[in-house]
Structure formats: C-alpha cells, structure tokens
C-alpha cells in the first residue's frame, strides 16, 4: 500500500484544532479583557470636555472609571466644570498643553486645547457648594497650618527636615502650594490633599481629603475610614479609640446594614445607621441640629492642647461660638439614642478626666519645666534636644491626649492603659529627672548635633502676611 496523502490529514487537523480553539479562546478572553466602561455622548457636553474624557479614559482609565461612578457623572458634571481655569488665574497647568499636539492620543488636537488647573480647590467647589465651603473655611481643619505654626516646636525651631514635614506632618495638615511661572507645582509641596492646604488661589484646604478623587462621595465621608487616614497613631488615635468604643464595635458589626447614601439632611440615627460614625456626631445633621462642614464646631474642650481649654479660649485659633452652646448641640445629638442621665453622667466623667489631667499632671509638670528653664538647667535655644523636653512633649502630646480623648469617646484602654497609666509613669520619670537636676545643679545633657534639624523656620507668608 502506498503512503497515505499527508495534505488532507493536515487540513483535517488544522480545521479540528481551529474548531476546538474557538470555544476555548472565548472564556480566556473574557477573563483577561474585562469590559471597558463605556462613555457615549448623550447629554450636552462641550467638545473640549469630551476630549478630556476620551483622552483620560485611555491614559488614566482608573480615574475615568472612578468619575463615571460618581454623583458628578450622574449630574453630567464633567472634568471641565471643576478643572477649567479662567484667563488670569495663577494656577494654570501649562505642562498639560503638550497633550493637545499628540496624534497618538485620542483627541490630542490643538482645537480642543483649554487652560486647566491640576489642583481643584475648595474655592472651585464653592461654585456649586458655597455653604459647605463657607462652613469648612472657618473650621480648625481649614486653618490647621496657622495653628501648628503658632504652636509647634518642630516647625518653629526647625527640628525636622522639609522632607520629613512633607511626607509626615504636612501630608495631613497640608502644604503651602507653590506654582512657578511655567505652571509647574513645586515638588516640595505636592502631591498633597491635606485638610489645611493653602492653595494658589488663596483658599484653604482640600475637599478631597474626605471626599476622595474622583468619586467625591458623601457616603465615603460618612464612614470612619475617611477620618482614619489622619486621626490615628500615638498622638491622636481617634480611630483606635472609636474602634474600641461601643460605637465602633456596633459599626463593625452592622455596617453592612448602614445606608450611607441617604440624601443630605435625611441621614437618620437609628434608621440609616445603628451606631454613629465620626461624621454622625461631629458633622452630620441629627434631630434639630443642622449639618456643618466645620468639623470642630461641636467641641467643648480642646483635648489636643497642652493645657485643656475651652474652644473660645484656644489662643492660636479661638472659636467664634461658646462651649456651652456647642455642648448642648452635641448633647442634642446624643439624645437621638441616649437618655439624659446617660449623657450627663458621661460628660461628668469626661470633665473630671480633663480636670485631673490639667491639675494633677500637666500644671505641675509645666511649672517644673518653667523652673528648669529659668535656672538655665534646660537650654531654651532648641527643642527636643534634651531628654526632659521630649518627656514633657510626650506627656501632653502623646499619652495626655490619649487619656483625654479616650475618656471623651469611651474607650477604656485608651483612657487608662494607653492614657492615664502612661501619664502617671511619665510624670514620675519626669519629676525624678527634673528634681535630680535641681538638686545637683547639673545641666541637662544636650543631644548635639541634633540629626536632620534642617527645616525652614520661617512662617509661610501666605498664612502670616508681613
């Protein structure tokens, strides 16, 4: 018998393999190529805005998808509504112009060119949300740069470097944005979404601290996770305190039932949420109390200050209200779920904790510290370069805050073990060391040279005009 012809066999094999491959390749494609979010021009949008969307859909698809899911997209609010600048504005991102002469990009043509700013500020947001911005602008959030420059020795004595500040302190507190002639943002001030950021247009803060880009969600800002990006750690562990409190425990157990998307002015304790989140007590409307974007409005003690004072007596930034009014407001919020004796007795414990901290711990330590400075046993020129200065600082700035804040938000571990227990130990160690110097007349050892104490000590003129 002659050899079988090869050609038909190969043909059959090729056809078979194709037939088999087709059904196999379909699920493979679905897994590897998820459907891209679509965008059809169905509502009136200026062609320049279409260009923004189509180009960013290709170049930064995550950013586009985020916006596409936002309430802004629902309302046909496009990129330009926030990013467009008017002629004469100082924050025009000139570097962006180059993308309008890129034939490899969708809509990369000169006819779509518009001046834009990369940083959108509360002033821009005020075009549509003026009352929210007005409230925010008077909060301690918006004015935190002014406050820390009036208080903080790290800044005033230049004890850390500019980059330690940029990546640390100012990441939350906010940088003073600088933009040069060519429209480039100074990398020492950017990226930043700090609550007290000083913007090129003179406005303060960043709405995107809590309503992150490009979703700008009210639901997100109502969750404690919006606050915990800054309010954590040894010096202000509000989130850890919340987690430990009954409110936090209930939030974690029931958050899947929470209706975070309730319309503004309708978010209701006991209906939309079981236990409050940070926003529910500090910002949201509740009962007859109206919503405020001034997050520090309802406070009755400054528990972060060295000596606890009433907000209207807080010298770096005195509140315009009085503590009794604000406490009554906060009590009205408690009343959504609690009875009067519960509320009053809770405040009784908080007030006592504040009083004990002030009188028993802080004032004697402060007095001793002043005496050491007066006698020249501790050197005043720098800060943090002597052990006692660090002890003093941590007593109020770390455990002293934890004790007060822990008592305020009913987290026993923070009120006691991370709080007053540590305050007590610190107090004793401080007094022992201080008394030793006073008795012997020995001067405190100075850590010199102090590492990386290179930061600028000049107050920003944008906040403190000369």
């Amino acid at each position, binding site marked *: 018998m002659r050899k079988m012809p090869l050609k038909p066999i190969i043909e059959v094999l090729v056809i078979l393999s194709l037939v088999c491959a087709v059904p196999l390749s379909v699920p493979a494609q679905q897994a590897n190529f998820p459907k891209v979010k679509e965008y059809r021009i169905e509502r009136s949008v200026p062609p320049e805005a279409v260009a923004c969307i189509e180009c960013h859909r290709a170049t930064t698809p995550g950013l586009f998808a985020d916006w596409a899911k936002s309430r802004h997209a629902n*309302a046909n609010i496009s990129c330009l509504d926030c990013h467009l600048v008017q002629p004469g504005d100082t924050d025009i991102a000139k570097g962006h112009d180059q993308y309008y002469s890129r034939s490899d990009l969708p809509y990369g043509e000169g006819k779509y060119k518009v001046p834009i700013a990369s940083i959108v500020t509360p*002033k821009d947001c005020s075009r549509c949300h*003026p009352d929210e911005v007005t409230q925010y602008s008077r909060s301690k959030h918006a004015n935190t740069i002014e406050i820390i420059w009036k208080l903080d020795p790290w800044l005033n004595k230049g004890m850390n470097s500019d980059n330690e500040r940029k990546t640390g302190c100012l990441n939350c507190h906010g940088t003073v944005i600088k933009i040069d002639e060519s429209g480039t943002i100074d990398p020492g001030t950017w990226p930043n979404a700090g609550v007290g950021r000083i913007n090129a247009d003179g406005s303060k803060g960043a709405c995107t601290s809590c309503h992150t880009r490009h979703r700008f969600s009210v639901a997100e800002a109502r969750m404690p996770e919006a606050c915990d990006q800054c309010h954590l750690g040894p010096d202000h562990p509000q989130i850890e305190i919340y987690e430990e409190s009954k409110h936090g425990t209930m939030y974690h157990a029931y958050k899947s039932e929470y209706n975070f998307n309730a319309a503004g002015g309708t978010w209701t304790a006991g209906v939309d949420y079981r236990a409050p989140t940070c926003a529910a007590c500090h910002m949201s409307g509740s009962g007859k109390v109206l919503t405020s974007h001034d997050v520090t409005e309802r406070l009755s003690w400054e528990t972060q200050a060295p000596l606890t004072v009433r907000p209207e007596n807080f010298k770096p930034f005195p509140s315009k209200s009085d503590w009794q009014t604000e406490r009554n407001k906060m009590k009205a919020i408690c009343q959504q779920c609690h009875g009067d004796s519960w509320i009053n007795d809770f405040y009784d414990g908080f007030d006592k904790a504040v009083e004990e901290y002030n009188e028993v711990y802080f004032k004697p330590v402060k007095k001793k510290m002043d005496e050491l400075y007066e006698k020249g046993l501790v050197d005043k020129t720098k800060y943090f370069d002597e052990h006692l200065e660090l002890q003093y600082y941590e007593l109020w700035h770390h455990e002293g805050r934890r004790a007060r804040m822990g008592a305020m938000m009913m987290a026993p571990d923070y009120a006691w073990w991370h709080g007053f227990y540590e305050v007590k130990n610190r107090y004793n160690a401080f007094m022992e060391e201080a008394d030793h110097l006073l008795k012997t007349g020995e001067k405190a050892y100075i850590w010199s040279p102090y590492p990386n104490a290179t930061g600028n000590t000049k107050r920003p003129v944008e906040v403190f005009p000369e």
Partner: protein
Amino acid sequence: MKEAGTESKGEKPALGRAIKPIILIVIGILIAFPLFSISYYTMVRTSTPAFCASCHEIKPAVRAWSESTHVNNAVGVVVDCMDCHLPAPQDTFDFFFAKSYHGIKDVVIHFFVKKYDREKARQSAYAAFDNDQCQKCHRNLINMPNSRGAMLAHRSVIYARAGYEKKCVDCHYDLVHNDKIAVMYRQYRKLPYQAKGLRVEKLGI
C-alpha cells in the same frame, strides 16, 4: 341773572375770582416745566456710560465694561452702568437721590482726595450691590439644565438659609470690570462661562 344779584353784595365775578390762581398756575408751569425738563434732560444726559467716563477715575471701568459680555452679545443687549449701579429709574425717588448722592460724592472726592484707590472702590461697590440689581434682568436662575452646578449654587442664594445669605457678586465678581486682553463676545466664548467661586474675602473667618 340770579347770581348777579348776589354779586351786587360786593363780591367779584367767578371769572374774576379764578383769575389769580390761573395766573399763578400758569406762572408755576412756566417756571416748573423748564425746570422739570432741565432736570429730566440732565438725568438722561448724565445716565450714559459716556458721561460716567468723563471722569478719568472711571475711565478704566468703562473701558473694561465696553469690552465685556454685558455689551457684546448675540442678542444685542447692552447693560449700562446705571442698570447695575443704581436703583431702577422707575423707583424715581430712590434713583434720583442715589444718583445725586453718588454724583456729588464723586465730585467731592475728585477735588479733595488725592488718590483714587480702584481696589477700594471695587470693594465698596461689591458691598453696595444688591441682588435686586442683578435680578432686574437675571430672573430665571434656577432652571438651567446645562448648568447643573449653577442650579445648585443659585438655590443657596435664592432660598438662602439664615446666616448663609450671599450676594450675586460674591461669586460673579470678575464678570465685567476685569482687565481683558481682547474684547469678550458672549457668542464667541470658546468655553462655558463659570463663576469663579466665592471670593476669598468671603471665605475669611
């Protein structure tokens, strides 16, 4: 005539009695009409932007206005200085006195105050502006389907919550008297008009 009998008691005839008031009225008209005409004519003459520009302090403002969209638009509407800066002429009393007051004040300042501070004048103009001034023409501010943001912001002006009252010029402060590099035509605006947001002065604490 019966009346003639009563006249005989020493009283003048009716025509005779009326003659004095008639003469007085005629004299009154002869004096008042030219006076009225003069003041009316003066009001008309002094209500034009050209008249406002006759003070050199005001010239830059008039120039900026003439280049703005309040002059240059497809419908041909021109909004004069007094349309924004004075009460409506039909509120005769308010109009007359506001106009006279400003006229006299400007003349006094011109002669007795050396330097004209444009920025200060701008701030006091913002402070003096009532929303009614703008809303004489801009009345439909809520239904703007292409401007969803403005719909939201305008609600907070028209139905302002206590403590959050705003003036139109708090956001629309850069509309007319800004220095431009070219004449602005509303119909040739490349991009949609946007208010700039609340003035920083309004955000102060």
